[in-house]
């Protein structure tokens, strides 16, 4: 069986499904190949934060594009992915972090991200429930949260309705350059051909980029998520701690039906091979203590479920986005390092633009996979082992 399209997208996470969606809006034919089901891994198990603030400034152009898509998601996708423009707040416990809030707010303004920084009495007037350890808050009024379990599958279905071919349960084992484009082969021997290929296969991307001599020091880790029983809806925003101390970096959001979704702290182990990731019991215990510190009123609540999934991290915590340095027509988008959900549709829109028109106004230089080839391979390995769980 041989199938052909203008573009083959490998990976059905939020980047892959949204790229397929935006390519179809540009009338390009697309085949999306997904080894499991759409949105099942990092895109489906993450916190669901639709958060621009805190990102590297270079990400903000795509992040702003993404926010526009999130805001129009119901109209664009024809279904509800539970996006709530509730605002997103970062809080901190340390004076140097409060200073950073002011610096970041000043820098981000030039990139179209407006933030309010509150301290002292004004902070507790606005958020009276915060623990008294909190020093400052940085509020992004237009950010929010959405349901990760629904988003990527919804982009996939919307792309399919526009004519994309979404092929699930199909693992790609080989991608080869050939005359006129690429040959993509599945584990069961099916062959797909296209002029352009996008590899956005998360923790599994490295095996394919390596086939083109472009390995990336990717590591798999699992987010440590939890959720409480439903309680009255009072936290109409998403909130997290900014800190350089990993144990302190927890975040939460409440959904209108009442459950509070919790996450953060050190990651757990994940295995791309078995597609399994786990929540370490000690991480859950440490997380709960941090929540009771940030919001003491959470003390009487109960956690009813924890979960994890396979996310992929790069040593500099920035993703790879953009063209291959080795093969014309080959593109990458992976290694979002725990921050890919919000920006996903912005990356998809930008890549669709790049693949279709050959250019994009968004500067992708700093996200090039070439940065790992420039570093010596021994150096890359040592960085990987340091950041491994």
């Amino acid at each position, binding site marked *: 069986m041989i199938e052909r399209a203008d573009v083959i997208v490998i990976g059905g996470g939020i980047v892959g499904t949204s790229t397929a969606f935006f390519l179809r809006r540009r009338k390009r034919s697309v085949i999306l190949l997904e080894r499991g089901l759409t949105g099942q891994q990092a895109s489906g198990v993450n916190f669901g934060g639709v958060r621009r603030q805190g990102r590297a400034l270079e990400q903000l152009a795509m992040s702003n594009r993404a926010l526009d898509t999130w805001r129009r998601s119901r109209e664009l996708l024809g279904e509800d992915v539970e996006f709530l423009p509730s605002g997103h707040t970062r809080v901190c416990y340390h004076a140097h972090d409060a200073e950073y809030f002011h610096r970041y707010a000043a820098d981000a303004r030039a990139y179209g991200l407006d933030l309010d920084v509150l301290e002292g009495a004004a902070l507790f007037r606005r958020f009276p429930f915060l623990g008294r350890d909190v020093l400052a808050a940085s509020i992004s009024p237009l950010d929010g949260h959405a349901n990760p379990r629904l988003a990527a599958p919804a982009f996939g279905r919307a792309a399919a309705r526009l004519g994309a071919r979404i092929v699930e349960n199909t693992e790609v084992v080989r991608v080869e350059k050939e005359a006129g484009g690429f040959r993509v082969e599945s584990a069961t021997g099916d062959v797909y051909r296209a002029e352009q290929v996008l590899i956005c296969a998360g923790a599994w991307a490295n095996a394919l980029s390596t086939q083109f001599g472009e390995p990336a020091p990717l590591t798999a880790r699992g987010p440590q998520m939890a959720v*409480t029983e439903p309680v009255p809806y009072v936290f109409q925003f998403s909130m997290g701690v900014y800190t350089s101390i990993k144990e302190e970096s927890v975040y939460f959001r409440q959904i209108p039906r009442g459950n509070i979704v919790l996450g953060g702290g050190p990651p757990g182990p994940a295995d791309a091979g078995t597609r399994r990731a786990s929540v370490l019991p000690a991480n859950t*215990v440490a997380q709960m203590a941090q929540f009771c510190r940030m919001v003491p009123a959470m003390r009487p609540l109960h956690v009813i479920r924890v979960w994890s999934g396979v996310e992929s991290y790069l040593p500099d915590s920035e993703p790879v986005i953009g063209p291959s340095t080795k093969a014309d027509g080959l593109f990458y988008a992976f290694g979002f390092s725990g921050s890919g959900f919000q920006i996903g549709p912005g990356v998809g829109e930008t890549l669709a633009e790049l693949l279709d028109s050959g250019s994009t106004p968004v500067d992708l230089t700093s996200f090039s996979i070439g940065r790992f080839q420039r570093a010596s391979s021994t150096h890359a390995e040592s960085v990987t082992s340091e950041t491994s769980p």
Partner: protein
Amino acid sequence: MAATVIVIGAGPAGVRAAQALVEAGLRPVVIDESRRDGGQIYRRQPEGFTRTYDTLYGTEAQRARALHEAFDALRPHIDHMPDTLVWNVAPNAVHVVSGTHHRELAFDALIICSGAADRVMPVPGWHHAGTYSLGGAQVALKSQGCAIGSRVVMMGTGPLLYLVAAQYVKAGATVSAVLDTSTFAQRLRALPQLLAIPSTLKKGIALMGILKDARVPIHRGITPVEVRGTPERGVQAVRVTLADGAMLEVECDAVALGYHLRSETQLADLAGCEFRFDHALQQWLPVADEDGRSNVRGVYLAGDGARVRGADAAERAGRLAALAAIKDIGMTCNEDDANKLRTQLSRFTRFAAGLRTAFPWPARFAATLPDETIVCRCEAVTAGELRRVVNDMGAKEANRAKAFSRVGMGRCQGRFCAHAGAEVIAAQARVPLEAVGRLRGQAPVKPLPMALAPHEDMETSE
């Protein structure tokens, strides 16, 4: 240093496992969620309650007393941790919480005796206040001496249906009707297998006598239609279709439901045990050998939590699993004892198969549940919503349907809705139940307090 063996559960399997370990010279840790030992079936009444063994346990009084006395004799030789929930299992350690105190306990061997709970099938209106499981109705009576209502309907099928009804009658409660979805013909078909344990069969027949003497109406071969009620007043009546097609409405203020039992397998799942679909039971169960060894080294499964065969079998399976653990640790165990237990257990396995024939799980009801019926009570997911995610979103697998619809995401984590939910998905997707798969287990097994504090022992040791 002697091996650390942890037994989870102080019911028939857990107590007999602990006993065998003590006999071998070990000092096991026995962790139990309840305040007192005995498990569900031989649940001890709270201190200060004075009902006799005969009143509490009827025909099982002797067995209950023997188990309690065995446990009391063990107390100096074990570390008993009552009121303690094992909320997670890691490789070679369990994580427990008692109140808000948590701690990690390492083990060389873990014997999981997690018991069973009611297998339930939704019925329209079962979310009204006053609807209980049969097991829940029994706990109210055994523990607190309370009935769930003043006019109670028992509906479903299984030995517990008649047992709980008879216990309510003996306690002086009014049982307005016993409504059984299985038929007398199914009972006859099961007879040859049920004769594997004639004494238990005889006890079952005696229960019928109690109900007959009390003039409790019994209807077999019924199809549940509705638990009628209002949010303000709760349950007011139960409506069913009788075997002959006539409609019957029984007024009541409480209803107890259940279709036999299902193993509580969450701990085995968290321990990493492999699961296999059991075609006879139409359930996913952890894999274990005849003695209770799982595929995870050092993890053993015994009693109804591994496979529902009843309390008498659980006592033997608990002991057998302990003997296996003792042997695997490298100590000597009595092979004759083990052989005898294996032989006895095979009779219980035959009897359990007979019960399945006599009281079959009514899988067929799932396909015809009205769309507005709530399937997952924790998350208020209806049959219609579940069918929508199958049809419109292509969710033909249990975890995919959970991700899209929230079925099984609530407090009970699917313990009470997963079986029926899978049947609804299978019927809608037109695939075999096995193809729907099973919900992946996730900690905590039961809700975990956020205000956790380290157990005193942990603080001093650090």
